């Protein structure tokens, strides 16, 4: 009977175990689930609350597990492991979790978890590729090398079924001696090792595990020896199914991970293309093929790369970025052309390759494929976006900048210049101007400088700010900045930023002797005057 040979690994959650590491514990729902050597030495143990652990171990670094990041890392490793076998599966550790019983409330003592029973694992079916890698030992060495390269710490185990391999791995059972180098199993040793696994290390749901423990079952063999119908009556058919899959009396089909999606096509030209125009047609053809590929998969993209290989072996890459996810060949071609015009072809082009590795599901892309844009604003925005795309394509990303308003009292922090990010332009809010007329009735309720304000002095903010506030000189009470300044309104007081860079200023509008209005401030901390900007 042919045996499947699997290989399971537990991945570490985060970081590497460098030698003089500070004490670190990984927690899940504020309970420690793993601790490094330094933390364990201080008495930190799995199952402890984060508070207790912190109390025990001064300077303990606590990290909460982040399931999404773990899943991402695992998926990445799985892609790498495809180098060894096409059959790679991810096992998140939830293979047998019964949902019929809710966990028992109010347990007096929290269960001490087994080494790491819910560790995510990768399962590699290696039965078929032992010969290719010249034996089990050699294959394991290569896997170890791969893991080192990936800076992942893991435990390897081999067994005749996926679940058994997983259990050996999470329980830290060394397995090489269960198989000869060409994959022949030592059935007795395998059986004995499996039977000796502790019930607490089987990764069962808490209720089932506790129930088995109360009946006095301590290891796998205690359970496996019982008649299946009696067990089924108590723990259900799902449990029996799990048991049988562990021992191998039942099939355990699994869905292997699929290789990543990417699109790469190339065209070769026998005699090389010398002119830009010659590239237009093959590019159009490749883009056509690409958009069909996108349509079939309901994808759009914001980024693709052209690679031009020349007859002399040199190569050029042109990366195309779109502001919004794109599917239309015409738009992509237009962007490509703009970029192409800007480069010089040093030698005839022998190979043209189009590659795209990053996709967005179409549903997530804003729909503007309709016959009419949904609204004028949307149409404007779409027009603006394509304008921005073309500007970027022509000027280069480095030369496109965007002004954004930042919510801050501090004037120089209130606007930011940022590299143009994908996505629509932000609409600035238009300041509303209030017209004020003064009546002279009820005059003693009026401010003393009402005549000045009649000009309309809403909160003053000049459009042009100096790059750096410019120092204003004083001659007695007279302010001088390339001429005399006369204060006509203010102050507006700003006192903020104490948590970083304290800003304590009184702002005034001042009239320069040349007639321009300046925005000046008095810095309280430094006791000096500055010009911040000029009103247009």
């Amino acid at each position: 009977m042919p045996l499947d040979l699997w290989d399971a690994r537990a991945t570490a959650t985060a970081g590497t175990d460098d030698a003089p590491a500070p004490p670190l514990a990984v927690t899940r729902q504020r309970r420690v689930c793993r601790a490094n050597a330094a933390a364990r030495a201080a008495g930190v143990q799995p199952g402890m609350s984060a508070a207790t652990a912190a109390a025990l171990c001064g300077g303990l670094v606590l990290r909460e597990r982040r399931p999404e990041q773990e899943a991402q890392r695992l998926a990445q490793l799985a892609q790498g492991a495809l180098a060894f076998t096409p059959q790679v599966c991810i096992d998140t550790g939830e293979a047998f979790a019964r949902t019929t019983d809710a966990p028992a409330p109010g347990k007096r003592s929290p269960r001490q978890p087994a080494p790491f029973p819910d560790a995510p694992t990768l399962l590699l079916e290696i039965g078929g590729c032992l010969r290719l890698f010249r034996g089990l030992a050699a294959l394991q060495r290569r896997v170890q090398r791969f893991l080192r390269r990936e800076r992942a710490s893991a435990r390897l185990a081999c067994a005749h079924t996926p679940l058994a391999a997983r259990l050996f791995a999470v329980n830290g059972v060394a397995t090489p001696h269960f198989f000869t180098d060409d994959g022949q199993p030592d059935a007795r040793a395998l059986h004995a090792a499996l039977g000796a696994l502790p019930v607490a290390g089987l990764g069962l749901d808490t209720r089932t595990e506790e129930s088995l423990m109360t009946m006095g079952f301590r290891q796998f063999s205690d359970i496996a020896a019982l008649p299946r119908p009696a067990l089924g009556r108590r723990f259900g058919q799902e449990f029996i199914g799990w048991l049988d899959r562990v021992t191998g009396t039942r099939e355990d089909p699994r869905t292997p991970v699929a290789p990543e999606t990417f699109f790469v096509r190339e065209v070769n030209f026998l005699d090389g293309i010398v002119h830009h125009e010659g590239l237009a047609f093959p590019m159009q053809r490749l883009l056509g093929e690409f958009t069909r590929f996108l349509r079939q998969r309901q994808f759009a993209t914001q980024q693709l790369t052209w690679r031009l290989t020349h007859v002399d072996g040199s190569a050029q890459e042109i990366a195309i970025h779109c502001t919004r996810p794109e599917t239309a060949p015409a738009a992509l071609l237009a962007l490509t052309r703009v970029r192409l015009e800007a480069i010089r072809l040093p030698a005839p082009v022998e190979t043209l390759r189009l590659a795209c590795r990053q996709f967005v599901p179409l549903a997530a892309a804003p729909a503007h494929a309709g016959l009419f844009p949904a609204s004028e604003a949307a149409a404007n925005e779409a027009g603006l976006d394509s304008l921005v795309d073309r500007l970027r394509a022509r000027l280069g990303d480095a030369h496109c900048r965007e002004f954004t308003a930042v919510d801050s009292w501090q004037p120089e922090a209130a606007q930011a210049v940022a590299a143009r990010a994908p996505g629509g332009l932000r609409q600035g809010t238009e300041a509303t101007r209030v017209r004020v007329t003064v009546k002279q009735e009820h005059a003693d309720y009026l401010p003393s400088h009402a005549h000045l304000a009649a000009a309309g002095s809403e909160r003053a903010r000049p459009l042009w700010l100096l790059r750096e506030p410019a120092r204003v000189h004083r001659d007695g009470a007279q302010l001088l900045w390339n001429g005399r300044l006369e204060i006509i309104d203010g102050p507006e007081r700003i006192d903020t930023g104490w948590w970083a860079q304290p800003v304590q200023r009184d702002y005034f509008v001042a009239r320069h002797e040349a007639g321009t209005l300046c925005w000046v401030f008095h810095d309280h901390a430094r006791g000096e005057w500055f010009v911040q900007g000029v009103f247009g």
Partner: protein
Amino acid sequence: MPYAELCCQSNYSFLCAASHPEELVERAAACHYRALALTDECSLAGIVKAHLAAKARGLQLIAGSLFHLEDPAHPEHPVRLVLLAPTRSAYAELATFITRGRRRSPKGEYRLALRDLERLVRECLALWLPDDDSDVTRAQGAALRALFSAGAPRLWLALTALRDGNDTRRHLALHALALHLQLPMCATGQALMHERARKPLLDVLTAIRLNTPVQQLGTRLQANGERHLRTLHELQRLYPPALLEESTQIAARCTFSLDELRYEYPEELVPAGMTATQYLRALTETGARTRWPQGTPAPVQAQIAHELALIADLRYEYYFLTVHDVVSWAKAQQILCQGRGSAANSAVCFCLGITEVDPARSELLFERFLSRERNEPPDIDVDFEHERREEVIQYIYRKYTREHAALAATVIAYRPKSAVRDVGKALGFDSDLVEHLARSLGWWESAASLQARFREAAPQANGRLAQLFLQRAQEILGFPRHLSQHVGGFVITRAPVSTLVPVENAAMPERSIIQWDKDDLEAMGLLKIDVLALGMLTAIRKTIALVNAGGTPLAFSRIPAEDPDTYAMLQRGDSIGVFQVESRAQMAMLPRLKPQTFYDLVVQVAIVRPGPIQGGMVHPYLRRRAGEEAVDYPSAAVRGVLERTLGVPIFQEQVIKLCSVAAGFTPGEADQLRRAMGRWKKTGELEQFRGKLIDGMRANGYTQDYAERIFRQIEGFGEYGFPESHAASFALLVYVSAWLKRHHPAAFCCGLLNSLPMGFYSPSQLVQDARRHGVTVRPVDVDHSDRDCTLEIDGESGAALRLGLRQVEGFGADAAGRLVAARAQAPFANLQDLKTRAQLDRAQLAALVAANAVTRLSAHRRQGHWEARAIEEYKPLYDAAERADSTQLADGIRLAPPGECEDLLADYASTGLTLNRHPMALLRERAPFNRCTRAIDVAKVRSGSFVQVAGVVTHRQRPGTASGVLFMTLEDETGNSNLVVWNATQQHFRREVLNARLLLVKGIAETKDNVTHVIAGHFTDVSDALAGFAPGSRDFR
């Protein structure tokens, strides 16, 4: 140019403003404001504090409140309005208006609309705070003008200059609006802090309120610190004189002061045709006849006459009648209760049945009652059985209605941990760091170590930010965070409560609280009755009921006094389960103090407290009691104060009295001192008395050292005040519970078990103690157990204690009820029958198996679990024919029985105790435990010699008074060993001390005054010796 600030919020507008009411008053007075209105948002919670401060500074204080009123016509634009109370009736109107808004909203919120003004506000003055002159504000202004049109002008348009660059525009806009509406204008500051320097804290509070770090708040923070109480000089630069002048005109119209509030008692208690005085006298006389059927002793009669005269003089009759009413109702419902407090220990209260402390039994206590000089309201707290207090509360609500009865508030304020958490979050610190920092403030640490902890936790942190963090955390300490409900202080009034103080909803449904806390109530002379819960009363009632059921008639009031056997037991320190004196420190004190009379118990209860300990009074008292030191008094006056405690001050009252007698405090000063004691932790107010006390005592010939000790004792009382009158009421419960333990140990243990959770000890410890006293304890059994623990009377061996189903983890009262009912019909045939007839689900059946309560129905635990698991879930249509026998359930499988250790662990896991051998008894057979001294033998070791002990850690305690010493208790099969762990040892064995469940300790035995301690030197954590063994230690502060 004079000015009155008419819109100013304190930190009682929770998280919206950054100064205490007292600070605002102080600043307003310093700035020579004509008046200050405290206008917290929909609240008067800070007004009493401001009132007291304003009175002290001679500043006019105006009661007011700020509102955001809904306008149904413009839902996006609420109307900002300040209401001020010019008169007493306007104040009632304001309090009622706030109450209306609060009572219809969940805790902490309010909802009020413009139309509510129409119905509820007739006399209040109003300042409207609009932002601009738009169509919306014009419409709202017109509506307001219509609402406030009657009589003299009552509505102003308030202008605030904020120096935000908009001042001029706003000023012109509001001016135009005022012209349009023909409204007068005035200047207001809308202050949120007393001075500019609080701006950073205000930003932090905003961040906490909006749950966003300050760095991300941008313009949601105030642009500057202008919203403080500005100097008159600055105000003159900001406002035209006419606007400032107008503010003082408004203030001049507000003549109301909080001093006008008069408390009025509910009247309905007095029968028609009688005055309250006559009725109280009649009730007292009736009571006296019941208490002394042979005639009231003459001294008591004189005491009663004296007390009644005093009560009549101070007009407190209704207060006593109210307490009497509540207590009588509770007694009629068979709810055990007892009063305590200065007024409770009076002959009148004894006659009224409020207390059982007999004046004839201890006249020492009764010299102090109410006094004319002491400006102190009568203080009666009534303790009720903790399981039945809710019935009493509901009675009060029923009798006086929710309109007239409400609970006092407790102000929840920032403490070191919460300050660290909230400020850290507001400054955008990593949540791990904040949490670590908050938690690393161990349960025994104070804020002082915060800085060190911060450096330890985040050595790489930016030093400046750390500094800012610490400053803000220090500033926020003591800031009120929200109102919560007082443990049981009821205010009952004749007029609706809401005319005195606003009422709002508590977090608990069907509870309403007033916006003032107990200090406010006391300051305003409002009387409250504390309806408290006490577990020991429950236990005593249950014990007495068990004794009565056993055929011995007994009642709380008929327990024989001064029983020598009871005192003998207490003198041995044999007091597990006894009220108050069961703690370790008390237990260690009993053999030294050797109580022989009731008054000794009063001292015993009061002496192991921070006051006497910090004052160093314990040893002098013990020495004098033992006759090792002469009892003398520095003067006759002091003799009068200290005679009953052998010249050593023990009680809070004695210390205060000493201040008058020996340090020359005036009655007023003594009264201030007494109030300050209750608040020491909050404000450090006591420090101001230090100089006066020490100078005064030295001038009267006392030594510096003695005076310092008295002051330390005062500080100790500040931490935990314990007056003699409370001690006396507690001492009575000590005596009663001790008597029950001595004479009815099985019933007493049973009563305690049925009243848990309460007290100091776990069920396991109580049961072990009972067994050591010869009580037979029987396990939980589905054939015999009720829900509660019961007494089973067997012929000659007396009563045995049968554990109840309540001990079984995961088995609720409902299931227990069904089981007992099903058993009454027929005994259970097997597990299937039990499960079906008691309608148990699978988890409940498993819980019974786990408790080993089905021993007749299945062979042992393992087999029981195996069989129980095979039974299908409960089906309502149960067919008797389906009734399976055990062989079917077992599937022919016989499992091996569990070992002793497994059974023991399962016992603890399910019932928290075992009736089999103690875990230490099991371990005792093996090394290294076979070389350890048993707890019972530790006392026999020569003092000063080396000893090795091992046991289960049952208590860890670090009293605030013992400068870093940690006390631990280890339990083994023979009893408890007491460990003393010095600070250095704790640091060295931090891990074992914090974490171990089973410890092996090497140390030095030390015996003094019949009490043996082990001074711990070396710890070994042996928790793994019984894997998974975790009865759970309880940590005490």
